[in-house]
């Protein structure tokens, strides 16, 4: 109501009065902005900001799905600290990350360098490797569960072609995690492959050729020409892969259900189990927050560390 006066200002201010003309326009824009932003603002406030804070609140309570709630303070967190299952679950998740992230990065970067701009059918490889990134994770994991079965392709292939008796991959506490990592790499490396491949596209061929004429070998060309230009992409891929790998859920859920025992249970599976199997929401929320803090810490470390090796001015 009060701002009505601004809307009756002449649509085109006389030249020279830029200042006077700008202000009402700014205020008018402000009102329109409110309308344009409303759906996202309301949605994000209700479904992201509020739940984030609420999660912190719930984690301080004994909060069963049904029934009486009681304030506990930090008891849920100290319970987690002393729960051998939670400790094991954190360890499993870290093990997954430590195996998965470097392997994923090395394979995707290696292939992106190998399948360079001059390779025939390059687009085909990009599409091909990207397919499992997009297909439903549950379907991918189902395929690999069959592959890893006793009598499945890997087992029968090893026996027929190499005469080796394969272990029961998913039922063995030694092999289950490597199996999950293998499946996850097959599923996920196409993403980073595309990131790196797009970055390598930006490296000028002329620079590579002149380096070659100057006698630089393959490794030197990579180290001194390509690497400095793709460090921002490496940083992006590393950070993103780290974040998402800490959140691993569907692969172990489908492949092993966290077993044998809890040897492949991850933090997110723990959150799910606490919340929807044991119906203790407070504990689930606390575990979720622990994961959040781990992820924030890793991301912060990445951003601090990047100053030493990421090159933005090329």
């Amino acid at each position, binding site marked *: 109501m009060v701002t009505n006066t601004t809307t009756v200002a002449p649509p085109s201010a006389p030249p020279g009065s830029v200042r006077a003309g700008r202000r009402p326009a700014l205020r008018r824009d402000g009102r329109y902005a409110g309308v344009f932003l409303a759906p996202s603002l309301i949605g994000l406030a209700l479904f992201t900001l509020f739940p984030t804070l609420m999660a912190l609140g719930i984690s301080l309570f004994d909060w069963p799905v049904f029934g009486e709630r009681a304030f506990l303070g930090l008891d849920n967190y100290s319970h987690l600290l002393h729960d051998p299952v939670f400790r094991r679950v954190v360890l499993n998740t870290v093990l997954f990350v430590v195996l998965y992230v470097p392997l994923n990065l090395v394979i995707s970067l290696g292939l992106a360098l190998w399948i360079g701009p001059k390779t025939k059918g390059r687009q085909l490889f990009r599409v091909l490797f990207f*397919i499992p990134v997009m297909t439903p994770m549950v379907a991918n994991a189902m395929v690999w569960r069959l592959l890893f079965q006793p009598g499945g392709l890997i087992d029968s292939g090893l026996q027929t072609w190499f005469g080796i008796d394969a272990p029961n991959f998913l039922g063995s506490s030694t092999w289950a995690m490597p199996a999950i990592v293998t499946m996850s790499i097959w599923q996920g490396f196409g993403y980073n492959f595309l990131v790196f491949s797009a970055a390598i596209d930006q490296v000028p061929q002329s620079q590579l050729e002149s380096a070659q004429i100057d006698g630089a070998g393959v490794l030197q060309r990579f180290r001194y020409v390509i690497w400095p230009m793709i460090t921002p992409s490496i940083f992006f891929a590393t950070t993103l892969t780290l974040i998402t790998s800490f959140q691993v859920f569907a692969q172990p859920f489908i492949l092993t259900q966290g077993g044998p025992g809890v040897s492949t249970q991850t933090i997110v599976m723990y959150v799910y189990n606490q919340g929807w199997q044991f119906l203790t929401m407070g504990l689930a929320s606390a575990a979720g927050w622990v994961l959040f803090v781990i992820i924030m810490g890793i991301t912060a470390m990445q951003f601090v560390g990047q100053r030493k090796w990421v090159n933005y001015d090329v």
Partner: protein
Amino acid sequence: MTSEASAGVTGRRIRSGVSHILLILVAIAFLGPLVYAVSTSLKPADEVFTPAPHLFGSEIRWQNYADAFTFAPFGRYFLNSLFVAIAGTLVVVVASSMSAYAFARLRFRGREQLFVLFLGTLMVPQEVLIVPMYWLMQSLGWVDSYWALILPWAFTAFGTFLLRQFFLTVPAELEEAARVDGCGPFRSFLRIMLPLARPAIAVLTVFTFISFWGSFLWPLIIVNSVETKGTVPLGLAQFSGQQGTQWNLMMAASIMAMIPTVLLVILLQKHLVRGLLVTGLGGR
């Protein structure tokens, strides 16, 4: 001299030929699991596990694909997934194109700070949100409803970010000319910006659809009556537990779940790079 030069050329040709053959082998190995899945989906049930690997069973059983639909209500799961993914994508595209326009084109106080806050919400992993989200759904009476499958994850700053970047590349003169002609922000948004942003919106649409289509954790939590409200991934997970595992039917169902996404990837192959950000963290 010429023979030396041609020897160098032949050497390079041989090397690139060998490299190409190796690459094709890598691609075949990569495709192996999918080929095996298709092959299993066409085998009779008692030929899934054989001592030696076989690409084909004694017959090609297309009937498995039809049987998957009667073994579990997969028709229902597909319809549910389709409905949820389309509705969710619609909300994402409308909400994020509107806010992206505001951030790219409208001047208002606190714009930069608000945008940083938007991006900040991307930091919060879904796992932190699921507990309070479940409680919120309980409070709204939305547990086991389509609302709960669609709305909670339909407001993400990814779309806003992606489309804002695109809107910023549109020359300001285009819009200014229209504004001088008395065209307000709404018409300028609908008539000028949205049509220009079609490629970016297509990317956002496809990637959002795919992320809804594949989402698993949230449906697993929020859907109680899988038979009627279940989505495809939920159906698949459920399917595996029933009466032993019918691997041939399960592979048929998995392949069917993959087909729409494979087609979309092929359709959008030229624009995959642009969608990387949407997929990167958006896998909910």
